[in-house]
């Protein structure tokens, strides 16, 4: 284990009994999980490399209970780690041994569907896909569709600003929500946005989205729902190597076409997928590009023709156009199976999430191959090619001594490479604990201090999900959160933390 989390505070551990008693005064007995075996179920999220046993798991089901817990935590100076469905790939909801794990799974109701205003009010524990299911009969859907959408919760999506395969055209979570209700440390409630567009003064809703549970606990979300496009067709394009595939992606976008989906897979992934569950991908292709065009039928048919032409011009060895809904889904089947398929050849994998300027793809791929050789590991690649978001899957075997450390080291090198070409550490999975110690590759001390000061504005005692996102823990007062001019505080009437 190389990951250092803030050391459990003995002072907190010593008051566990008092904390449990007071939590039981707020929640029904079965909603306070104190038993060690039961707590084990919560010792990690989908980033399973590191685990910790939470001090206690609290499962509130009303906003008043969340407020009471947040007030209690502040009063007792206890840490809180919020958790949705536990599907974070970056350890965003990894528990703390001296922290309350605040599970929002009981907030599982869709409160209102308002077609007139194209939105729905939902609780944070509602599963992502459940929103689309609830509105599909009327022809609507909720656009962001992370691969984990059958499991992940909308609250977790907000915390991580989750994406999916349709981001390039339809945006991430942040572009698809209208309102949030947030409980702050201490128990105060703020409502941000609503059914109307855009914020009054600072866009705190935008700030909250993707803040990884470090600023507040979201208890209600107003999401925007979209009308399903009447037609969608897929193209499956095979290439003899990654370079022409990448050029084809660039050429499509240069023509002014923004496809609903634009994905790419390398040879290692294609092979893994075909072994896992054959779906008819061409066996001579070293790179596959899947394009989905959606809109009205006339427009889709027109654009399919244009994309086909572009693909041929870029030397595609296969160009297949879906002629039925079943065939379109068949094109996607392999892509959707990519992660489980790769885990069959792994046997373990570490999923990276860098984003790069799309044009750097060939350079980064070559670089990654060299790095993988250096570390003695293999990498399979799936990309959200349209927006340059890479998911290199580093294959390792946890039962081999030192393999985990090698995989992590390779992952870090790959992300450094992404940053070096103008990209970023994470496109949609979040920093969490996984990429926390790499933040310095992208941001200098001053950049990070400003982000931490924003955190201080929400959580001056640093009790909400500490140890995530930022490589160092610093006290708010230390960073000059308070500013003194000529011996006097500005606006002395304002209460200070």
């Amino acid at each position, binding site marked *: 284990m190389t990951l250092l989390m803030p050391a459990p505070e003995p002072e907190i551990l010593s008051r566990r009994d008092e904390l449990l008693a007071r939590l039981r005064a707020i929640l029904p007995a079965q909603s306070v999980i104190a038993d060690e075996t039961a707590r084990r179920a919560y010792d990690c999220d989908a980033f399973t490399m590191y685990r910790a046993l939470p001090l206690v798991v609290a499962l509130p089901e009303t906003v008043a209970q969340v407020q009471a817990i947040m007030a209690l935590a502040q009063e007792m100076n206890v840490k809180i780690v919020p958790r949705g469905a536990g599907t974070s790939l970056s350890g965003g909801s990894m528990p703390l041994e001296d922290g309350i794990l605040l599970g929002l799974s009981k907030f599982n109701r869709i409160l209102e569907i308002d077609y007139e205003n194209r939105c729905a009010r939902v609780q944070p524990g509602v599963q992502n896909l459940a929103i689309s299911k609830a509105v599909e009969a009327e022809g609507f859907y909720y656009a962001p569709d992370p691969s984990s959408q059958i499991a992940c919760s909308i609250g977790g999506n907000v915390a991580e600003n989750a994406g999916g395969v349709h981001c390039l055209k339809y945006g991430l979570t942040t572009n698809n929500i209208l309102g949030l209700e947030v409980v702050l440390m201490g128990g105060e409630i703020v409502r941000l946005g609503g059914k109307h567009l855009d914020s009054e003064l600072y*866009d705190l809703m935008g700030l909250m989205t993707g803040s990884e549970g470090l600023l507040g606990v979201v208890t209600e979300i107003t999401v925007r729902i979209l009308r399903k*496009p009447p037609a969608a067709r897929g193209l499956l394009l095979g290439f003899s190597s990654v370079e022409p595939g990448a050029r084809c992606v660039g050429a499509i976008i240069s023509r002014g076409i923004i496809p609903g989906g634009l994905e790419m897979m390398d040879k290692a992934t294609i092979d893994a997928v075909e072994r896992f569950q054959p779906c008819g991908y061409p066996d001579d292709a070293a790179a596959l590009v899947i394009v989905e065009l959606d809109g009205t039928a006339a427009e889709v048919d027109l654009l399919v023709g244009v994309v086909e032409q572009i693909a041929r011009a870029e030397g595609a060895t296969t160009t297949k156009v879906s002629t039925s809904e079943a065939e379109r889904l068949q094109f996607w089947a392999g892509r959707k199976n990519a992660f489980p398929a790769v885990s069959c050849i792994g046997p373990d994998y570490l999923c990276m999430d860098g984003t790069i300027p799309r044009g750097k793809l060939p350079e980064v791929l070559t670089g990654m191959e060299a790095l993988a050789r250096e570390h003695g590991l293999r990498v399979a690649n799936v990309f959200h090619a349209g927006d340059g978001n890479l998911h290199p899957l580093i294959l390792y075997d946890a039962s081999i001594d030192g393999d985990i450390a090698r995989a992590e080291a390779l992952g870090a090198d790959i992300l450094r490479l992404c940053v070096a070409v103008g990209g970023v550490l994470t496109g949609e999975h979040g920093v969490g604990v996984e990429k926390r110690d790499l933040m310095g590759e992208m941001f200098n001390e001053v950049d990070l201090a400003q982000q931490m000061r924003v955190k201080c504005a929400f959580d001056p005692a640093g009790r909400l999900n500490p140890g995530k996102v930022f490589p160092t823990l610093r006290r708010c007062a230390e960073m000059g959160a308070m500013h003194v001019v000529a011996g006097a505080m500005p606006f002395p009437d304002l209460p200070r933390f």
Partner: protein
Amino acid sequence: MTRLAPRDETELAEALRAANASGAPLKLTGAGSKTQLGRPATGEELSLAALEGVTLYEPEELVISARAGTPLAEIEALLEAHGQHLAFEPMDYGPLLGLAFGQGTIGGLVAVGGGGPRRIKAGALRDHLLGFRCVTGRGEIVKSGGRVMKNVTGYDLSKLVAGSHGTLAALTEVTFKALPKPETEQTLLLTGLCEETSLAALRAASGSPYEPSGLALLPRLTAPLRLDVNAAAIRLEGPAISVARRLDDLRALLAGRGGDFEILPQAESAALWRALRDAAPVAGQPGQAWRVSVAPSDGHALVAGLREAGASLLAHFYDWAGGLVWLCFEPAPDAHAALLRTVIGRLGGHATLIRASAEVRAAVDVFQPQPPALAALTRRVKESFDPAHILERGRLRAEF
């Protein structure tokens, strides 16, 4: 009054460090086209105009970066030459504020945020700002975000600076998504219905699969069309074949509601939406102008509520299928803020006073008042960037 005009980011940081130490407030300007927005701020003027120039433009990567003082017109012309645009359709405040067209810098645009008619489909400025560099009120050079389309590394501070009116930091460089311009556009007008029925038709279009990129209602006699009946305008953009088909489909969807259809071809359609983007229906009237954001289905209730209460409306129109309402009132000392905010308090949403004299803008809440917990949080966020309140003091609130 001396005018500070740093030549680069380093000089700017020096100036802001000095101000932070002395507590002397500064007003940030670029082209000076937006000084009438928000409350009047106090302090010495600091010009960012010298921080100028496009620093990166890669059309095939859909990304453009420019220093904050770069004229917006220059950026728009460059994008236009490559068949691209800023898809959120930034408003030109010139006509409304009695200034010339086409002024303003990209930094000033970020400072006021917002989005035009296409907001409903393409998002607002906040959705297109990928990253930035700035000097905070502490005088520290800070960067956030990046130049790639998808990025969740660290807090999304781009959202915070968009629309912050320069109260958090002086921007030095901003990076935007540049998206392909639609090939063609046409507008379907549905005329002759009452406001309520027209708005219901716009909401029906909004919930249709025909991807409207503009949904506005011009009350009768309103500029720029000045028809003698109400006109609901629905813009469709895309390849010609697709626009033509969707126009037919929309007519079929909206038939049976009464009223008459008319189609505005490309040039007329473009002119109409440019005028609506710049709030032409209220810009030409002499009164005090408000911009109100409500749930689309509440747009009509807002105007009806104001009329019931006897408000002296000179002009109004709706955008965003009723979700955005522009109002122009007979001038009053409080700009009708009390009445307007009572009605909005019932409905939810927010109202911003856009055009009024400096005295009026100093006397009333230009921006929607916030409940205490949110107001306190807003202030703490402000102070996390600008602890001495040196930037645009008084712009957002009398107390900061």
